[in-house]
């Protein structure tokens, strides 16, 4: 859980069979490298941040730390998630800070051979291109690998 998180592209490419956690966001399959994930929690109501953009749900108390919770779905430009008890918050560490990501549900842990990762084919959405660092085929479904750095460091505008 406290594992040092490495978001090194190199490592993703050359490591033999890395483990990824796949989950669904707005009906689509996404995944994150298992070492990037600190913990997975059940959704519980968060404290709303006034004037926050739509994809920032609010803040949550993670053992004394105040961490922001993002709605991944809204972040990807998909419809906003109606958060409920069934949903999960995936706590990741980005830029040394814990951040919670709301997902519909966690599916499974999959083992991926780096060679099987395909580049994201060019599509019309710039956001998608930025946020997805590659795709893989798993059990005949397409699983998108999230580029965590791009998702979180993408400028979050706070309305004045």
């Amino acid at each position, binding site marked *: 859980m406290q594992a040092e998180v490495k978001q090194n592209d190199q490592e993703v490419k050359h490591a033999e069979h890395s483990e990824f956690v796949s989950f669904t966001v707005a009906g689509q399959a996404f995944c994150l490298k298992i070492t990037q994930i600190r913990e997975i929690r059940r959704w519980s109501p968060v*404290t709303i941040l*006034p004037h926050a953009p739509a994809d*920032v749900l609010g*803040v949550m108390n993670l053992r004394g*730390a105040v961490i922001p919770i993002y709605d991944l779905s809204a972040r990807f430009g998909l419809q906003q998630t109606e958060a409920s008890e069934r949903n999960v918050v995936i706590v990741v560490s980005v830029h040394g800070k814990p951040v919670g990501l709301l997902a519909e549900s966690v599916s499974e842990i999959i083992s991926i051979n780096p060679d099987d990762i395909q580049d994201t084919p060019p599509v019309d959405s710039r956001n998608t291109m930025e946020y997805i660092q590659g795709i893989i085929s798993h059990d005949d479904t397409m699983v998108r690998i999230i580029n965590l750095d791009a998702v979180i460091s993408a400028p979050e505008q706070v*309305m*004045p």
Partner: protein
Amino acid sequence: MSGSIQDTFFEECEELLEATDEGLTAIEGGDHNPEVVNAIFRAVHSIKGGAGAFGLDDLVAFAHRFETVFDEVRSNRLELDEKLVQLLLRSSDHLSALVEAARDGGQIDEAHHDTLLAALDEYTPDEEEDLTFEPMGLGGPAPMMDLGDLGAAPAAPQEETYRIRFQPLKEMYGTGNEPFFLFQALRDMGDLAVTLDENELPGFDTMDMDESYLAWDLVLVTKEPRSVVEAVFEFVEGLCELSIAGDGDAEAEANALAALDAMFTAPPAAGSADGEAAAAPFEPPVPAPEPEAKPAAAEEKASAPKAESGKQEQRGGPKPTLRVELERVDRLINAVGELIINHSMLAQQIANLNVSDTRDVETELEGFKNLARDIQEGVMAIRAQPVKPLFQRMARIVREASAATGKTCKLVTEGENTEVDKTVIERLSDPLTHILRNAVDHGVEKPEDRTAAGKQTTGEIRLSASHRSGSVCIEIRDDGAGVNRPRVKQIAIEKGLIPENAELTDGEIDNLLFAPGFSTAKEISNLSGRGVGMDVVKNAVTGLGGRINISSAPGKGSTFTIILPLTLAVMDGMVVSVADQTMVVPITSIVETMRGSDDMINSLGADGTLLSIRGNFVPICDVARALGLYRESDRQAGVYLLVETETGQRCALAVDDIHDQRQVVIKSLDGVCGEIPGVAAATILGDGKIAMILDPESIIAASPTAAAFDTERRLSNAS
């Protein structure tokens, strides 16, 4: 060179500079105790030594010159008169500037540097002249005053023979120092002969395993100056009986101690002044080559008392302290914050338990709470530091400002030992600097004007700190002319800050100084007219959760009062609910709370509402609306918190309900999200939920009614 070692050096520099400043201030106050002079000398010397190791040539050169003057003072060749003290004070300031420049990579004032060097030179003996311009190497302390007797033409360093008697006390072994390594360091400098003196070693049956019985006699032939030899023993200072005698020691020293010499008719070998070593006759084991065939007797004992006295000071030093990374303390503070939150969670759980008799548990819980408080106070005390170093820096600001404006001012400080949170101290530095510069520049009159007004020519600025019911009060009082109210008002009108026909009370005029974009300086002086005004000071203070006030009496001076919270980590707050969210309002800003009824609310214009309180109308600011929150239930905000802003403006914050009043642990939202208007920080409540801590000032600023009403009030004042 490793950055962390250098960081440590700069940290130490700060302490040493403080010590220098403190000593100089004592001297300025008339304390000419040789110990004070010695303390400064040592501090400057340590800075020089460290700077040499890091190749900070400018710093080394200046510290050397500075130190040389002090050496003159310490050996009574220089009289500490007013002029010299002032020069030394300025030099000490410059030394700080050099250290800062070395640390932050800034530029120093070259002209000022040269002026001071020249001024210091006037006090140093001529024969030093050549030496001081020698390039200062990286390798270590530069050649020093010990070579002074070599005359006007110092050639390449000559070999000297040092007789060293080294007798460790048992404490030295306790600190992990090894004589072997010391000897190794000496051997690296030149030829070293070591003889063990085991005369004091008792038989095995009477031996105390922990006692130190051994002594060593060393003969070192080296080209290194005495200071380098002494430096080897720096870390065991006070932990051993040490005497170092050089064959080529200063003549001056020899003369001064000729009398002493007469008293010591014992063999020249008696290294230690207390006669302890007399039982161990000194026998040079190897006839060392002595380039200068001077009789070493006088010099040998000369240094003995010196070593003794140094040891004494070491023992009577300040209380032991511990240098701890700030981050560790902060982690502890966080953990304690958790503990307090945990306590309130427990209390809530127990209250929910539905058990008839919870008295026993509650007693224990009360104990838990008290312990948690104790720990919290203890941890906060770690972060708390006396304001003394800050005040000392301010003395320097006043000196510099006085010099720049041609006025004479002295800074009197009070309550230097008042302890304040470290962050508060750090962030107070800039506002205080600004206020003090202003006090010198605008407050204190020119000397001739002061004389005309029947005041002493030297202006007095009083800087005091004190604890006042849970907060810290810092006061800056000058005895100058006071705020020039007609002029302030005129400028405010010129700059369009107030309408031309505005009628303001004295207090309101004084407060105009804090208005953004206000500056009274007739011409932009080098000193305070740097484009920032007192509004920056005010922002800095409010940023710390404090407030600043000014009061002024014409002809008598002005007083700035800064009230700050004791700590930035915990505050008293009122827990309220706003649009189904729980929030906290700082208690310091709340004047009163009341439940409103419909007949107290009056409409003003299309959107504005005013609350009538005992005949006064106060704008209502709906917190939910200001924060952009929507009520899911159709409950109306029916409770009002009357708050007062810094400018004295009142506003009624409308909230749904008041729950509680409690201490909350402040959690910064930095790095969690950007700045949110109306929200100062967050906290964690008893149920584990996060609550926003509101910032009434910015809520009011964001509220159209309150802002509009304020303008109207000003206009009505003006008409």
